């Protein structure tokens, strides 16, 4: 049942792997304004142009950035939608735990006074 649902979901692994690197996260942030090409981006980092190019390629494969032609240049642009997927997965998991904590609270309220610790609390008053 779960397995069949899982296979229907897109594969998010490349997305998270791409975001697991500091330089790549920085490229994603810079490319939000979509003003620079790979050459300009490379100027921000103490590494070779080839190394930055590799990072850009990883981000592109993960769908986090796209290259777009603007006049004679190709600028790197962040795909904000892909970035939001990572966030959304954690949001959904947060909801799951919020619901669990609500149920914990109900259980505590229901059993207050009915169990040992509750009785102890009563006697302390």
């Amino acid at each position, binding site marked *: 049942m779960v397995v069949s649902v899982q296979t229907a979901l897109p594969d998010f692994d490349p997305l998270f792997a791409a975001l697991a690197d500091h330089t790549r996260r920085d490229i994603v942030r810079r490319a939000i304004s979509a003003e620079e090409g790979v050459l300009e981006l490379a100027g921000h980092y103490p590494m070779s142009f080839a190394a930055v190019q590799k990072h850009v390629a990883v981000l592109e494969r993960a769908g986090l950035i796209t290259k777009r032609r603007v006049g004679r240049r190709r600028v790197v642009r962040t795909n904000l939608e892909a970035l939001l997927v990572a966030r959304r997965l*954690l949001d959904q998991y947060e909801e799951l735990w919020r619901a669990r904590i609500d149920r914990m609270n109900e259980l505590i309220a229901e059993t207050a006074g009915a169990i040992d610790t509750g009785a102890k609390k009563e006697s302390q008053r």
Partner: protein
Amino acid sequence: MTVTAVRKDPDRLTLTVEAEFDASVERIWQLWADPRQLERWWGPPAYPATFTKHDLAPGGRVEFHMTGPTGDQSHGYWDVLEVEPPSRILLRDGCAADGTPLTDMPINTIRVGIEEIAQGRARMSIEIVFPNTEAMEKVLAMGTEEGLSQAVGQIDAILAVETIRH
């Protein structure tokens, strides 16, 4: 407001949830230490959990399954790594088929901390670390399935009433 803080780190695949309760540390501990109480909160109402093994000790094992409205079951287990009653649990949460761990399925780590913040008031913090997004998807797929099953179950109940009326 019970939940007091939520931290999400998409880069580290970590979710931290903090909650405060009007209860003693010992009372919160019982929510984890007593399998009958665990059953009341681990699964959503439409997917209640049944704990068939509950050895909450270092190296111990906890086994459970969740049963859906159509009788479908998904099995899970915890490998208990560290326990310090009544304040600390570290466990690995995984999926199983009839008690046998599915080794190809990802496992996430759950760290529980319970501390007193005032007389009769306790804070619980839960940190969940996912090894990869596959683990997250898996859990979320279950969540979606639970939600869907719940909705389907309600439709079934309505249809059943309609059928009786006819």
